[in-house]
């Protein structure tokens, strides 16, 4: 416990619940969750102390977005969010072979502010554009997307330097 608290002062710990990470809140979590979070954070701590890191796994989305990707963020093991620009700006929720057009929306004006959040059901996005005085909020439900993605449990198997998953 002391080691976990000490580590949490230096590194963000991948707990399933949000901070602040008080001792009481941490102690209220299942021991297995604490153990996994600590092990992961400790591995990162050690990796960052090295001069180079060899990635354990690289997962590659082979679906190509035609437009230039201007922004990308990791959501979870299954989904990532991108913003692209061609004639218009578009947001996509991407994963595996999912067809972006089914999960995208567009706006002509350049976005000047945006934020995304996700929970177990889907992604919530809010975007403000320069040409509009109002923002829009959109929720994209995960269940609507029938994606296929490799079993993320494979990450805990053999240590591999590179793993490209074909889609």
């Amino acid at each position: 416990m002391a080691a976990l608290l000490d580590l949490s002062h230096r590194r963000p710990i991948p707990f399933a619940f949000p901070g602040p990470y008080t001792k009481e809140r941490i102690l209220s979590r299942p021991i297995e969750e604490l153990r996994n979070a600590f092990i992961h954070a400790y591995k990162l701590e050690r990796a960052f102390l090295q001069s180079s890191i060899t990635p354990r796994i690289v997962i590659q989305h082979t679906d190509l977005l035609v437009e230039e990707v201007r922004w990308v963020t990791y959501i979870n093991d299954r989904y990532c969010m991108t913003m692209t620009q061609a004639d218009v700006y578009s947001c996509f929720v991407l994963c595996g072979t999912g067809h972006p057009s089914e999960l995208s929306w567009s706006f002509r004006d350049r976005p000047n502010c945006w934020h995304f959040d996700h929970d177990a059901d889907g992604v919530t996005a809010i975007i403000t554009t320069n040409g509009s005085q109002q923002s829009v909020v959109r929720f994209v439900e995960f269940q609507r997307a029938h994606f296929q993605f490799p079993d993320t449990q494979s990450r805990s198997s053999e240590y591999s330097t590179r793993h490209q998953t074909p889609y």
Partner: protein
Amino acid sequence: MHLPIAARPSANFLEGHIAGCVYRLPDRSIHVVVIEWRCCKTLVIDTGSSVRTVISLTQVWAFDARLQAETRISARTNAITQELWLHTETRTVGRTWIYSYSQLQSVFDNTKKGELEHIRLEPQKTYKSIYQGGGMPPAPHQFTTRTLWNGSRAAFTHKPAWATTLSRLSDGDTKLKEGNFELTIRRDVLLRGHRMAANTIIQPDVYSIGPFGKSMAVIMDDDDGVASVWLADVQGRRGEGTGRMVRVDGGVEWGIKCMNFDDARGILTIANREGMIHHIYLV
């Protein structure tokens, strides 16, 4: 403290920036959006049917959380405890305000939908923390690697959501700016990273700031396909003003256009100029 009338949000309140928080409460009908509006910080709540629809933020509630000017806001919702956690901080004091979902729900139930209301909503709990950095924490524009590592912003863990910009200063330092947060990377730190990475990159082509208060990441891409992640510890290097250059060897390919770094899980997400997305698990 109620906001003055002139400062109340209006139909064009979204002149301001989203302060990095948008959450959907479990009843699937409420979105919470935290917006920094002009000099005041306002919590704005939007309601409406949500699934796969675009919601115009015309139904707005702002409630008085006794926020102060010069306060930064970050927020989280906790589905386990059914609470909204709102963290505010001035230059010296951080405070966490906790509201229950039932409180928020009652606000919606008792407020005429479609009209702007100004509501005073007392939090159920508050936590106060005094920053420990020795003296006054620096103003955001004074942040350097050294002051960041002092941990003076350790409680500010949520990343503002708007685009990062990078500029070179006349003295060779590099300034990263994201929202109203600025971070200056000293020239010698970048040079040190340059030597460790054994390439000629001084100015990164692609960059990103990781979660504030814990660590920072800058990813660089150069013509020979070498990409590097620059990471620094917040308190592990306290007072030294140094950072470490950690190179990601393999998996990061030439042509990076944008990236995202999940510091807690150690995952780099990268889009290259061909529109290909990579998830790179560091450990």
